[in-house]
C-alpha cells in the first residue's frame, strides 16, 4: 500500500493477526499447553479478599489426575452416589445430544447444537448450585436442565416446535426457557445474559432474597460489551453472581486467539475488574463442582461475585450448520490433553471401587432408552414441518400483557381470512 505521507526513516509497523496453531491436515500437538499438577493451584478461604488471589486466574483448578485419582485442596469429597448421579446426567446429556442431532439430520427440526466434551461445565456446576438459583445460560448448557431432572420430552417439544412447545413456536430450537426450571432463555445475540444475570442477582440482593444467579458465555462472546458492563456492575455492587466463561477454544471457526486468548487467560479479566477469578479444568467434573461450590458460597455469604474460566474443548461442530473439518485439525478433540469429562469421572468411580465397565454399559443403554422413549413421546406432539402446531391466535398473544386494540383487529382480520379460505362465513 502506498502511503500519502512522507516516509520517515523508521521500520514499517506490522499488523498482527492471530492464527491457530493447527489447520486441517495438521497433526495437533498440545504439549505446549501448561497444565499444573493436581494440588498445585491453592484453594483460598471463601471470605478471602479478591486482591489476594490473582494467581488463581492463571492457575488451573484440578481435582482428578490422569489416573482418575481425586486429590488436592479442591477435592469436594462427594459421596459415590452423588458422583454416579453426576456421571449419569452427563451421559444422558450426551445421549440426548446424539439423538437430537440425528433428528435434525432427518429433517425433524431445523437446527441443533451439541455440547459434546463440555458436559461437565453445565452438569457439575448445576450440582453445586441450589435448585432454585437462577441460571442465565448460553448455547451449550442443556446439561443444566438435565441435571435438574427437567423433562426431556418438554425439551424435545421445544426443539421440534410442536403443539406442546411451551414457547409456542416462537424460539429457535435449543433456546429453551423455563421459569420453573430456573432457566432463562438463551440469547442468540450472545452474552446479553451476562448483564441480565448481574441485574437479577442485584435484584435478589436488593429484595433480601437468598438466591444467587449464575451465567455462562463462550470465550468468543466475552469480547462483547455485555461482558464488560456485567463485570463492572458485578464488581461495583458486589452482586451475588457467578459468571462463567466457557473457553472451548472455538467460536464457530474463530479460535480463542481472536477473543484475546493468545495474550492472557480469560479468568485474568477478573483481576482488572476487581473480581475473584478462577481458571478451572472444565473437563474435570469434580473441579467444576468445587469451583462453582466455592463461588456459590462466596456469593451467598455476601463475599462477592466470581468469574470462572472453564478450560475445555468443543469436541464437535458449532451446530448442525457447521463442518469443523474445514477449519481445524481433525485430531484436536481426541488429542485434547484434558481428556473427556465422562471418561474421566467414570475412571475415577472405577478407581475407588464404586463403578465398573458392566454398570457403565448398562447405564449407557438405560440413558439411550430413556432418550428414545422421550423422543417417541415428543414426536406424538408433532415435529417441525408437520402442519400447523400453534393456533393462529398465539401469534398475537403475549406481545403485550393485554392485547392492544390494533393487535385485536389484526388477529380478527387473520382469523376471518382463514375462515374464508376454509369456506366458513360468519356474515350470513
Amino acid at each position, binding site marked *: 500500500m502506498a502511503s500519502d505521507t512522507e516516509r520517515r526513516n523508521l521500520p514499517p509497523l506490522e499488523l498482527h493477526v492471530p492464527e491457530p496453531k493447527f489447520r486441517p491436515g495438521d497433526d495437533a500437538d498440545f504439549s505446549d499447553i501448561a497444565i499444573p499438577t493436581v494440588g498445585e493451584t491453592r484453594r483460598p478461604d471463601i471470605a478471602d479478599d479478591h486482591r489476594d488471589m490473582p494467581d488463581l486466574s492463571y492457575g488451573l483448578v484440578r481435582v482428578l489426575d490422569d489416573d482418575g485419582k481425586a486429590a488436592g485442596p479442591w477435592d469436594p469429597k462427594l459421596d459415590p452416589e452423588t458422583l454416579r448421579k453426576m456421571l449419569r446426567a452427563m451421559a444422558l446429556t450426551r445421549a440426548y445430544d446424539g*439423538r437430537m442431532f440425528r433428528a435434525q*439430520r*432427518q*429433517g*425433524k427440526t431445523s437446527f441443533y447444537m451439541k455440547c459434546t466434551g463440555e458436559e461437565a461445565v453445565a452438569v457439575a456446576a448445576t450440582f453445586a448450585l441450589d435448585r432454585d438459583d437462577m441460571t*442465565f445460560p448460553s448455547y451449550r448448557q442443556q446439561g443444566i436442565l438435565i441435571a435438574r431432572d427437567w423433562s426431556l420430552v418438554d425439551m424435545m417439544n421445544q426443539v421440534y416446535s410442536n403443539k406442546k412447545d*411451551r*414457547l*409456542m413456536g*416462537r*424460539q429457535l430450537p435449543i*433456546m429453551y*426457557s423455563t421459569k420453573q426450571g430456573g432457566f*432463562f*432463555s438463551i*440469547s442468540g*445475540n450472545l452474552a*446479553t445474559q451476562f*448483564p*441480565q*444475570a*448481574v*441485574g*437479577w442477582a*442485584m*435484584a*435478589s440482593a*436488593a*429484595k433480601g432474597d437468598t438466591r444467587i*444467579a449464575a451465567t455462562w458465555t463462550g470465550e468468543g462472546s466475552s469480547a462483547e*460489551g455485555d461482558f*464488560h*458492563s*456485567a463485570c*463492572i*456492575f458485578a464488581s*461495583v455492587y458486589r452482586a451475588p453472581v457467578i459468571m462463567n466463561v466457557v473457553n472451548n477454544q472455538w467460536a464457530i471457526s474463530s479460535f480463542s486467539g481472536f477473543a484475546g486468548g493468545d495474550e492472557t487467560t480469560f479468568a485474568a479479566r477478573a483481576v482488572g475488574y476487581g473480581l475473584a477469578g478462577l481458571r478451572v479444568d472444565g473437563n474435570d467434573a469434580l473441579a467444576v463442582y468445587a469451583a462453582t461450590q466455592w463461588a456459590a458460597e462466596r456469593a451467598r455469604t455476601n463475599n462477592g461475585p466470581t468469574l470462572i474460566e472453564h478450560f475445555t474443548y468443543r469436541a464437535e461442530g458449532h451446530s*448442525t*450448520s457447521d463442518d469443523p473439518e474445514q477449519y481445524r485439525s481433525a485430531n484436536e478433540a481426541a488429542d485434547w490433553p484434558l481428556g473427556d469429562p465422562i471418561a474421566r469421572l467414570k475412571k475415577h468411580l472405577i478407581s475407588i471401587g464404586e463403578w465398573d465397565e458392566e454398570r457403565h454399559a448398562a447405564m449407557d443403554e438405560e440413558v439411550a432408552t430413556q432418550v*428414545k422413549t422421550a423422543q417417541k413421546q415428543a414426536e406424538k406432539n408433532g415435529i417441525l414441518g*408437520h*402442519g*400447523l402446531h400453534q393456533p393462529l391466535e398465539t401469534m398475537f398473544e*403475549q*406481545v*403485550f*400483557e393485554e392485547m*392492544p*386494540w*390494533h393487535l385485536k*383487529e389484526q388477529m*380478527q382480520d387473520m382469523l*376471518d381470512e*382463514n*375462515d*374464508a379460505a*376454509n*369456506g*366458513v*362465513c360468519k356474515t350470513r
Partner: protein
Amino acid sequence: MAIELKMPALSPTMEEGTLAKWLVKEGDEISAGDIMAEIETDKATMEFEAVDEGVLARIVVPEGTDEVAVGAVIAILAEEGEDADSVEAAPASEPAPQPASAETAEPEADDPPLTKPETVARAADPDIPEGTAMVTLTLREALRDAMAEEMRADERVFVMGEEVAQYQGAYKVTQGLLDEFGDKRVIDTPITEYGFAGIGTGAAMGGLRPIVEFMTFNFAMQAIDHIINSAGKTNYMSGGQMRCPIVFRGPNGAASRVGAQHSQNYGPWYAAVPGLIVIAPYSAADAKGLLKSAIRTTDPVVFLENELLYGQSFEVPDLDDYALPIGKARTVRSGNDVSIVSYSIGVGIALEAAQKLAEEGIEADIVDLRTLRPLDKAAVLESLSRTNRMVVVEEGWPACSIASEIAAICMEEGFDDLDAPVMRVTNEDVPMPYAANLETLALVDADKVVAAAKAVSYR
C-alpha cells in the same frame, strides 16, 4: 406407524444429492446409529445414519439415483411389532387442519361486505371530579412526583441511572428522591447505558420494577439491543412464562445548541417495535398520569421526555392518584377546519400555529397522540372525518416517521374523508447543525405548520 426416511441435508446449503449406495437392504433390522447409506454431494461423500429402530420395509429411491431433493422420502422403516410388508408410503404431507365448523357451514354466494370489524373499545381518561383543585407544576416536577408516588406505593420500584442520586438527575428530574428513598432505591450507575439497560432488564426479570433514566435518549443508542431484544421480547419469547416490567425514560429530541449527536428524536425508532409501549407526552398532567401508568404496567415502556419542556409550567389536577390510560390520544384544541396531529414538543408548536390560524379564520383541531405505541388510530380518523384535512407536526426527521405512519393510516382508512393530501411538517432531513441560525432553520416551527395548514385548506 411407519417412519419415512428422508433425504437429509448434510450441509445448510445442500438442496439435492446423489444416493450413491445403500448399505442395508429391505427386510434388514436397523438400530439407531447404523450407517444406512452413502450420500454424495458435489463437495463430499457422507454417511447417512439411522435415528430410529425398526425393519427397513421399502427402499423408495434406489442407489445410484442423482439429483435426489433434500426432504424426499428415500425409504420406509417399519417400527417394532409392525408388519413390514403392509407398510405403505404415507401421503407426502398431512392435510392442513380444518376448523370443525368447515364441514357444516354453507359457503356464502356473495362476497362478504367490505367492512372493517368494529373498532375495539379503548379506555378513556378518568373523570376529574368537579371542584378538583389545579396546581401549577413544571414538567420535571410532575415527573418527579409520579416516580415518588409510585415508589411510595410499591417498594419494588427503584430508579437507576447516571447522576440520578447525589446530583439529583442531570436535568434534576429525580430531585429529592435520594433523600426520601435512600441509595438502594435511587442508584447512581457507572457510565454505560448499555450496561445499566441490561442490568435493569435483569432486575425486572428478577421481580423488581426498575425505572432506568437515560441522561438523554441520544446516549441510549448503545442500549437499544437490551431495550428491543431483551425487554421488548421477554414475554413473547418465553411463551408468557417471564416478564420484564421496566420503564426506560429520559429526554428525547432536540434541545438547544447541542449539535448533531444530541438532537435526535427516537420516537419513530422505538414505536416500530412490537412488545414495547412508547409514550411521549406534552403536558405536565399527561406526563404525570402516563408515567404512573408506565411504572405500573407489566410491559416494558420507553418514556420519551423533552428537555425544552422540563421547565415549562402546566396545570395538573391535584388528585391523590392521577393515572392515565396508555394508548389514548387527547384532543387539546377543538376545531372543524383542519386537523393537526402531533406529540411531545410538537403539540406546543401546533398550539402556537392554531392561534395564528384562528386569526385568519381557520379553526384547527389538535390531537396530541401522547402514546406512540399502541397508536390511537381512531382518534386520528375521527378528527379527520370532521375536518377532511390533515397536517402532522413532528420534531424529528421526515422519513419513516410517526408523521409518515399517520399519513399511511389516513390513506388506508380515511381516504374518503380526505379533501387534500396529508402534509408532514417535520425537521429538515439533515443532522442537526450547531450554528444557532442553522439550527433554527432545521427545526419545525409554527410558521411552517401555518403554511401547511393553509395549503391543505387551499388558502
